[in-house]
């Protein structure tokens, strides 16, 4: 059974077609990796699936519902760790977790227990009452992940969850996510630029480039298809070795600059 389906999904921003005729399916309970070079359209697709953006065209179903129209029903079915920061810097680690728990209606006693456990898990227990603005980049990332794992949804979207984390932490977190997937049958949809990570955990991989899906299958299938021996080689064979002249970067830089300006 498919828990996520997209058919001919299109998203345009002005003249840029960020997502161009994308169709794929994610089976219930699987770990699905969505790979692609910078600016390929991964985050945009995730934003559409998670109701943050409305598509320009195409059909989508998430847990049997349409994110463009049945937003509340779709929102109740997933959790997400965003690629960009999404914490409140002016609140403490604990307060960020508490806020999330209340938004997701986790009953108080379970909520407190889970928050304690998750902060323990990402080794932030002793900093729980510190304001997030005083955290390092890696600490913030760990807190985002802990928060995303606080409630146990049917589908978990992870947009480059392990970005900027050291290998120890990455392994530790992936082990936890794989356990969740096995024990609760939680569907995992993730993106990453670490190919060995995708190779190790994903059952199905879709590769997107310039807004189009260029290949789909298991890691083994992709390697056979491209006559390569590692997923990284397969990825390069599929998407080429050209470094992306990439709009995101300059937009991000502008955004960062503006942020500093207004801080």
């Amino acid at each position, binding site marked *: 059974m498919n828990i996520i389906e997209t058919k001919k999904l299109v998203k345009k921003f002005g003249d840029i077609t960020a997502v161009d005729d994308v169709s794929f399916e994610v089976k219930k309970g699987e770990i699905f990796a969505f790979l692609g070079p910078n600016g390929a359209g991964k985050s945009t697709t995730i*934003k559409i699936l*998670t*109701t*943050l*953006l*409305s598509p320009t065209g195409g059909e989508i179903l998430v847990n049997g519902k349409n994110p463009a129209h049945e937003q*509340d029903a779709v*929102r*109740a079915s*997933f959790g*997400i760790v*965003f690629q*960009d*920061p*999404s*914490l*409140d*810097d*002016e*609140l403490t680690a604990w*307060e960020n977790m*508490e*806020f*999330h728990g*209340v*938004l*997701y*209606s986790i009953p108080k006693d379970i909520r407190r227990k889970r928050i304690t456990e998750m902060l323990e898990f990402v080794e932030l227990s002793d900093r729980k009452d510190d*304001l997030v603005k005083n955290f390092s980049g890696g600490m913030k990332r760990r807190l985002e992940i802990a928060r995303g794992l606080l409630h146990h949804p049917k589908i978990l979207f992870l947009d480059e969850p392990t970005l900027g984390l050291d290998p120890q932490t990455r392994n530790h977190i992936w082990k936890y996510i794989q356990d969740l997937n096995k024990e609760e049958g939680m569907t995992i949809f993730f993106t990453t630029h670490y190919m060995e990570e995708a190779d190790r955990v994903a059952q199905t991989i879709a590769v997107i480039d310039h807004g189009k899906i260029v290949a789909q299958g298991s890691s083994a299938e992709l390697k056979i298809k491209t006559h390569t021996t590692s997923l990284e080689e397969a990825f390069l064979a599929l998407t080429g070795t050209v470094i992306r002249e990439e709009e995101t970067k300059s937009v991000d830089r502008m*955004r960062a600059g*503006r*942020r500093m300006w*207004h801080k």
Partner: protein
Amino acid sequence: MNVIYILWLRQLKRYFRSKARMIGSLGQPILFLFALGFGFGPIFQKAGGGNYIQFLAPGIIGMSILFTAVFSGIEIIWDKQFGFLKETLVAPVSRIKIMFGRTLGGATVATLQGAIVFLLSLLVGFQPVSLSLIPIALLFMFMIALVFTALGTAIASLLDDMQGFQLIMNFLVMPLFFLSGALFPLNGLPAFIDGIASVDPLSYGVDAVRGALTGVYHFSFSIDFAVLVGMIILFLGIGSYLFKKIQI
């Protein structure tokens, strides 16, 4: 209910944690009370207007509520830029609830700010006619705060960054303040100023607070009350509609 509470609480925590902002935003009302209150006091008295501080204080209370409220609403732009808004927008909670929680929080903060200015005005000689009407004044202050927090939210829903902020301050917030009867009585004004003042929600808000604190209304208790209720419904409606449509 819990959701609205936690959103409200977040606004309050952010307010109490940024002491600089709290104190900074008291500078302007204090300056206005002193400079205008004592500067124009003698002329106002000579012209037969009575004690100017008595007239001015409710206006300055209204001003500080207006500024704080619009700013609280506008804060959504920051949440967009710093990313926190995404966290609330994907949650399985209706956006109306999110908008209400935030607006109640922002309005509470603005009312607190107004209450502080009220206390400060007592120091420069403002005398409320009756202590028993202070709760009524507070209610009106909260109503002003709701109107303008919702307005700020509506505007912020349309903007992606703070670039338009100066524009909003200079072409919306400042005129709302200066043309509201906060600084001068609305009697015998040239027709166009009178016209603007009579469609400015703050005119009714200031009049309501002034009426409750000094017993003198330009419109009347019931007109002020009715207009404020109408404006709250209108702006909450527009704000919710626009907030619901935010895309990130």
